[in-house]
């Protein structure tokens, strides 16, 4: 398994798999399987897949550590970028059909509607992460600072979940399901961080080289 994950070719099937939801949406649009409200179909499908890819991306670090599969990290950037890809599609279905490409009107809407504000924030927070996702940017920023910056994905995921929760009328089970997963993934990080801190810095004698928290 580990050697399989490390194989340079495994990224290709994962990439294609990530494109499947887009393929299904495209197929639905060509064959009239979008239902009576095509716009809503694309808005919901792209929104769902943005959240799912955010969740999958957030799963990588816990899985990597719990299953002792360090090579999983090779897929993290791709998965994160796919979350951004579906978020871009989601944003376009809002800016176009809903706002008629009126950017000023869109900003008014963003300011006025809390659920739009959070959705927009979740999207905007992903932009710097996508832009600095290259190896070059990790070098330029330095690993530590890059990592700090990329913790914005936590905020983005939280905003995304609340965006979904505030959107529904009464069917809160699905947004709560995503909220629960995101909560587990973030709490795991917190716990992991405490455990590592207590291990590297024994309570009484404070060492001067404080640990780096990954």
């Amino acid at each position: 398994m580990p050697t399989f994950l490390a194989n340079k070719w495994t990224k290709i099937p994962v990439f294609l798999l990530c494109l499947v939801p887009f393929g299904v949406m495209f197929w639905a649009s060509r064959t009239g399987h979008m239902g009576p409200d095509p716009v809503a179909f694309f808005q919901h499908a792209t929104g769902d897949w943005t959240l799912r890819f955010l969740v999958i991306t957030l799963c990588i670090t816990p899985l990597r550590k719990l299953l002792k599969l360090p090579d999983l990290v090779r897929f993290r950037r791709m998965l994160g970028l796919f979350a951004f890809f579906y978020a871009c599609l989601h944003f376009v279905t809002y800016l176009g059909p809903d706002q008629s490409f009126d950017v000023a009107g869109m900003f008014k809407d963003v300011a006025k509607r809390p659920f739009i504000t959070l959705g927009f924030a979740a999207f905007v927070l992903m932009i710097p992460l996508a832009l600095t996702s290259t190896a070059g940017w990790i070098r330029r920023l330095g690993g530590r600072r890059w990592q700090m910056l990329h913790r914005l994905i936590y905020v983005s995921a939280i905003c995304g979940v609340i965006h979904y929760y505030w959107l529904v009328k009464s069917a809160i089970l699905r947004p709560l399901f995503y909220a629960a997963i995101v909560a587990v993934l973030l709490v795991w990080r917190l716990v992991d961080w405490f455990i590592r801190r207590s291990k590297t810095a024994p309570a009484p004698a404070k060492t001067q080289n404080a640990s780096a928290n990954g």
Partner: protein
Amino acid sequence: MMLQRKPDLTHADVTPKEIYFNRRKFLQAMGFAGAAAVAGKGLLDLASPRLDARAAGKFPNLAKSPFSTTEKESTFDEVTHYNNFYEFGVDKDQPAKNAQKFRTTPWTVSVEGEVKTKRKFSMDEILKLAPLEERIYRHRCVEGWSIVVPWIGFSLSEIAKLVEPGPKAKYVAFESYYDLGQMPEGKYAGIQLPYVEGLRLDEAMNPLTLLCVGMYGDSLPNQDGAPVRIVIPWKYGFKSIKSIVKIRFVSGEPPCTWNITNPREYGFYSNVNPNVDHPRWSQAKERRLGEIFKRPTLLFNGYQDQVASLYTGMDLKKYY
């Protein structure tokens, strides 16, 4: 979600009536005319397919109503596969599947409360109670989408004539059928069931308020509120309660399901109003199903001539 395997064919998979009849008409045309004429006629039929379905339905020759809009009707497929009917699931495509086996016979509607003569009406009695009309109404959902539906029925006031509401009757309360055995999805609706709704007496007696028993020339499909529902075209769709079993004339403002669920977001009146936003989203525009861009929403959904006088002097922002 989108990849799941579908079960075997259900009623939802049956070719929509309009397409079926359109196809038949097309074949007929093939027989009568030459191939050259067919192309043009076939296209014409495609442009107005429901005329054919109407003639074949249960209610073929209906009186037209001056209240009908001349706007382009939504397709039968749109109106039957995009439903908010939480008793049968919260997704809009679920009622079309989950309501197929819903039993609507026998059916009685009990009319009670502050009336001279309480009565239970069977479906047959309701159908003969007053001449049926076709009313083509705009229907605007609180979620921001809209359709145009050729409903069939008569003004709710016809019922009042028979039972004679007394002086204490100031409101009318409606109640939907609810039965977990037939509606197991109701458990996850997130709203209190049975679904209840209400109107002020003068709203209920306005001729636009329709006791509806059909659409597109035929009986109501289960997912659209069979066998009998209320349609109030100037209010958001959730006020137009489906599959009713009880009509009560009462003295106080009756509870309404969405108002109970979230009083800040869904008021008792819930008149369509582009100037009063939902706390979470704008109501200024709406998307007509099948269209990409939104169109402006009209005050009282365009029925201000008929209903604005009901609300003179009322602050519509306060009584939303």
